[in-house]
């Protein structure tokens, strides 16, 4: 493991897995981005290993979402390098398409396709991007819907589902592409409180299954329980990173302490 996790001894606590021999899945080197004069990302550098679950915390406007959206090129970074699964993100469309088909993303606002039934939402990309025969793609889509616990909703439209169910369909849609990495961008922020748990439970199970995950969230409980590493961002910079135990019980930076005192 490189800079980040190496600073924290892995034997600091029992729950931390030893990923030092794992492959690098996402490598960011001095990634910077501006919106006009506003610097949204300021020299972000870190490496995320295969099977690692990274939770990104920080106050709003700190650049968390911008960063995670740079990983699959929904936003374009202006300086630095981002390498995802050995493919560097450049303006070359082929690289972008390759990365996107291997990186699944779930959004805050679900962004399901409202004109398609749930099953078609899930099977559309496997059919046309992965070029699978329709029957096979639909069978796999049903398997993904069972995985997120809503196979009985397959033939409804997204508008007929609750927020939590919609978000689970969105997760199934991303999983149907059999991605190597999953990105979660504040996926529970738009949900009613009683629906948050059903979505978080699925994400926990996904993490246990060995998926490489990058999660932007405000759910501290989830971060404590599931994360291998927590990254705290402010003003476009990585302020502090480490294991959940280190981060919540023993933070070193003043800004981290201030943030924790405000939310806990």
């Amino acid at each position, binding site marked *: 493991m490189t800079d980040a996790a190496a600073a924290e001894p892995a034997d600091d606590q029992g729950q931390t897995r030893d990923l030092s021999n794992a492959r690098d899945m996402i490598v960011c080197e001095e990634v910077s981005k501006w919106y006009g004069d506003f610097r949204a990302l300021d020299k972000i550098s870190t490496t995320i290993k295969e099977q690692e679950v990274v939770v990104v915390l920080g106050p709003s406007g700190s650049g968390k979402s911008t960063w995670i959206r740079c990983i699959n090129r929904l936003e374009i970074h202006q300086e630095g390098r981002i390498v995802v699964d050995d493919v560097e993100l450049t303006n070359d469309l082929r690289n972008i398409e390759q990365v996107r088909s291997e990186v699944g993303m779930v959004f805050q*606002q679900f*962004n399901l396709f409202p004109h398609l039934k749930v099953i078609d939402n899930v099977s559309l990309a496997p059919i046309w*991007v992965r*070029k699978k025969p329709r029957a096979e793609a639909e069978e796999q889509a049903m398997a993904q819907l069972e*995985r997120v*616990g809503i196979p009985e909703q397959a033939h409804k439209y997204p508008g007929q589902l609750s927020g939590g169910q919609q978000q689970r369909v969105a997760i199934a849609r991303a999983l149907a592409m059999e991605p190597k990495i999953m990105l979660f961008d504040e996926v529970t922020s738009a949900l009613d409180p009683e629906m948050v748990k059903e979505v978080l439970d699925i994400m926990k199970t996904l993490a246990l299954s060995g998926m490489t995950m990058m999660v932007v969230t405000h759910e501290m409980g989830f971060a404590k329980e599931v994360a291998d590493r927590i990254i705290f961002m402010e003003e476009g910079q990585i302020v502090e990173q480490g294991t959940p135990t280190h981060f919540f019980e023993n933070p070193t930076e003043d800004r981290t302490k201030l943030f924790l005192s405000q939310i806990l």
Partner: protein
Amino acid sequence: MSEFAGLGADLGMSTGMIPITAPPETPKLPPREWVKANLFSSPFNSVLTVVASIIILAITRGLMSFIFNPQRQWDATATNLRLLMTQAYPEEQYLRIWIATAVVFTLTGLSLAVWRAGSAVPLSDVGRRLLTFGGTIALLVLLAPFSVRATIIWLVVAVAVAGGGEALRRLVDDERTMSTLGILLIGLSGLVGSLWVIPYGNHTFQLHRTPRVLAEPGTVALTTKLPWTVMLLVAVAAYFLGIFIRERLPTNAPRITLLLLWLLMPPTLLYLVLRDPSFDMGHVLGTDIPIFLVYAVLGGALLNWLARPSTGEIGRIVAALVLVAAFAAFLTPMRMIVRLDMLVLAAFALAAPTFSGGPRARKNYVIGWLGFLGIMSWLVTAINTPSTVKVPGQFFIGGLSLTLIVAVFTIVISFPLGLALALARTSNMPIFRLLATWFIEFVRGVPMITILIFFSIMVPLFLPPGMHLGEVAAVIIGYSLFSAAYLAENVRGGLQSVTRGQHEAAEAVGMTTSQKTVFIVLPQALRISIPPLVGHCIGVFKETSLLAIIGLFDVLFIARSVMPNQTEFMGSTKENVLFVSLIYWIFCYQMSKASQRLERRTGLGER
């Protein structure tokens, strides 16, 4: 992965159907209270109600006095119905018109059955409608300047209708329902049956006879009532055939076949049935069919290769080269059909990677190409084949038929053109964006009449020698380009209303830009654009009346200037224009209703 199986079961309980409890029924107000609540709820509202009622009654009375004024020459309309519908289409060829109508009715009947059109209405509702209808008749009769005898007869009819409705409402229990199609059938049967029973009079006009205009008492001529009866029977038979098909075949195959038949119907009827083409078989067999076959075989093979997922970047380069070849073809002298085929092949080749996939996807794509190629080859051949149906002077048909032909072809052709323009204008490629913007802004800045004149008079001058384009075909092309520019702007509005999140979601699962456009953005944009698009279609239909300016005999032109020129009917313009506006209104209102049904079906406004 297996650990997910248990999770699904755990979460299953929170996803069960929410039990639906019926909302409390809002009681229906008895008539008197309804009137009080809705019309006389305050002194001011009462005044408004009274004033508005007086105005409505005055207008209706004016209209009734105009229609039933003894000075009105409704004979002019009745005598010249055939002229209004088909202009001078020869009498001995009229069977062609009826065959064409029968084809349309057959497809309609089949479609109604296959798409399960119509819904069940409670008989008590039908009774209520009849009651209202009878009341309306009575009111209109009292407002109309009828003789005492006519007033009494009509009042009896009105009371009978209303009484029947009231009886239906009271005597039949609420559970009994009736299909809307059944009601439609009863109405149409009544209309057609009345042709056999009611003495509308037999109005004829013959040039070489004195008197030229003759109104014989009795029912209408056999040449009118017999075909219409047959048409009704054809539609009913087709409906039952459709039910037979629906019950025995899977859902999708008949629907797709019917859609294709609807698409093929206009060019087939127009150029095979109505015009009766005199084909130069030597040319057809020696030139047209070989060209078609070469493009079908070579183009099909090329597209099959391009739609293979493994073809990759080389395929895109080859597709671009086909486009270059198509442009080159327009710079070198050769047959128009060869150039057009090349251009369409280039478009299909460029779009191939979007629809690439397994053998089945490739087969569908090649079939799509063959279909498009077939229709286009047929149209070009048919346009260049002279008609054996001869009428003095103009295009072989006129009147309402011409209006419908131009409107249908223009709408069908301008739709894909408008979509392409809208997509080009919103695309990221600067060249396409620039071209589309210039085209749209240019066309929108020019009056439609100039475009019609340009295409009917000037374009034939620019055509290469030997290439012949009928006047109506030229006008349809011009009108389609004009309509496409406006349609593009309507679609663009829909495209812009698709949220950023939808684009991102499609991109995040790895779709290419064209896949995102075809599967995600366009369906949503079109659904949002239904109201303006239907409004546009209504506009296209009505503006066909401008065809008169370039000397084509559309239905309004005949009503406005041809019929009043018959010395017997001097000054009958008002009646004819009123009649023609009724025809326009019926068509436009049906389009409007269809739009509302389409909106409901696609769930517009719900999500």
